[in-house]
């Protein structure tokens, strides 16, 4: 099987898997502990508007999706925190409007979008080197944010009220987190597609939660798991000739179910430490 590694597309796919894993491991950890999975799903779908805009103005759709998705994330966050509209409702609105605009933009740009399907469902085998560079750049920004704001993000995720009392500008940190979600969505689009992004964001971190007792450990586990499972999915999709995005997601789901079962079995054996004073 090693001869396939000499192909440029396969090398790019493997690099993409690593880049995607860094983004989804770090950001996914916050998404899971802060319970903003649905919100992140909404942000992911709005990205389609940016892809459409890219086709319309004739630039790389992934590049156009960056500012578009960030603005959408800030929009969802601001509306749900500052107005009477509930977060749930604003997610639904942005989700559908983002998709609708995407379709509209593509229609206006002569309606021909050759690799539209790969943006929706992902195709990790078709990531050009220019997009790898964009993905790497976004990973760097995510890592920087996660490092600089680690304690504040932790404080806000754990106990927002207390964080606010401690003098942290919690609104600002929350919006920063949503921007990180937006960036990670863009990194992941080419691997699994807009529609499946949410699984990559949520599942590795959710599995990692079971084996780690702090955020940093959880990020590490999630990154490792994601690398393992996305490369595994890539390999399976290659040998069975299946769509890569779906294969990766299904492999993630299987891993999640297995880890849940394993934990459930383990619980019966574990003796709870007696609570002493």
């Amino acid at each position, binding site marked *: 099987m090693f001869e396939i590694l000499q192909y440029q597309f396969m090398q790019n796919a493997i690099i993409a898997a690593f880049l995607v894993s860094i983004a989804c491991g770090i950001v996914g950890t916050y998404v899971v*502990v802060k*319970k903003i999975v649905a919100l992140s799903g909404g942000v992911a779908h709005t990205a389609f508007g940016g892809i459409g805009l890219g086709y319309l103005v004739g630039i790389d759709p992934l590049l156009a999706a960056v500012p578009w998705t960030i603005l959408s994330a800030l929009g969802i966050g601001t509306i749900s925190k500052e107005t009477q509209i509930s977060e749930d409702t604003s997610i639904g609105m942005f989700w559908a409007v983002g998709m609708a605009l995407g379709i509209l933009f593509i229609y206006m740009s002569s309606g021909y979008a050759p690799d539209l399907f790969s943006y929706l469902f992902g195709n990790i085998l078709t990531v050009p080197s220019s997009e790898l560079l964009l993905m790497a750049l976004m990973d760097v920004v995510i890592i920087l944010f996660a*490092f*600089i704001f*680690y*304690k*504040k993000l*932790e*404080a806000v*995720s*754990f*106990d927002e*009220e*207390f*964080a*606010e*009392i*401690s*003098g*942290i*500008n919690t609104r600002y940190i929350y919006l920063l987190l949503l921007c990180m979600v937006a960036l990670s969505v863009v990194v992941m689009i080419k691997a699994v597609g807009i529609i499946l992004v949410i699984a990559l964001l949520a599942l590795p971190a959710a599995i990692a*939660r079971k084996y*780690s*007792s*702090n*955020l*940093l*450990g*959880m990020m590490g586990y999630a990154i490792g798991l994601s690398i393992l499972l996305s490369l595994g999915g890539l390999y399976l999709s290659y040998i069975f000739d299946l769509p890569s995005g779906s294969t990766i997601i299904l492999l993630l789901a299987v891993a999640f179910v297995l880890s849940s079962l394993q934990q459930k079995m383990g619980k019966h054996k574990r003796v709870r*430490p007696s*609570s002493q*004073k």
Partner: protein
Amino acid sequence: MADVVELKNVSFSYDSIPVLKNVDFVVKKGDLVGVIGPNGGGKTTLLKLILGLLHPTKGKVLVFGNSPKSEREKIGYVPQISNFERDFPIDVLGVVLLGKIEGGSAIGWSYSKQEKDEALKALETVGMKRYANREISKLSGGQIQRVLLARALIGKPSLLLLDEPVSNLDPEAQKSFYELLDELKQKMAILIVTHDLTAVTQYMDKLACLNGNLYYHGKTQEGIKHLEKTYQCPIELIAHGVPHRILKRHK
């Protein structure tokens, strides 16, 4: 010297629904004050006004003679346990250290040795040092409450605010929690919002009965007879060590 907390004729409404009406309220140094009252009586609103999370519609809130926001560093806050996610991946020491981040410049994930020592000291004060590395999801309610207290203490507050700190604790854990507060009041003024009337009579020096208006504010013993007016229903009060009802039901 300015009082620790001073509310001057404070009113507050949420979307034009009045919650507090013309409340005058003072906490002095060394006070251990219990604020009691029914749900919706404005207890948590009072705390949030003192914390500067809410601003009065009318009147003035002063903490150490200044606006609450500018004195936040001197305030330690212990929330209700139910307010946060217990399944969060963090250990006891990590929770306490979160009390050290102020708006400032804390970058990265590591804490200095000095910060860790302070956190361990705060944990020692509340008797939780040996659990420093345990994940909080594996603690009991009483233990979590102590950890949250340690988180508030690490900032060396001069005013400690607690929001129903014992509501989920068994009597034994409640007792030791109050005894701890009793020791702490040497160093700081303490304000507790609670439903726990027996504890109020036993541990608090002062009592505030809040139900929209402030019905009573002063020494605990005299305040007890205002309870029924505050709750607007008959109250049966049983104190620790007193095996019978100490208040007769009256109309």
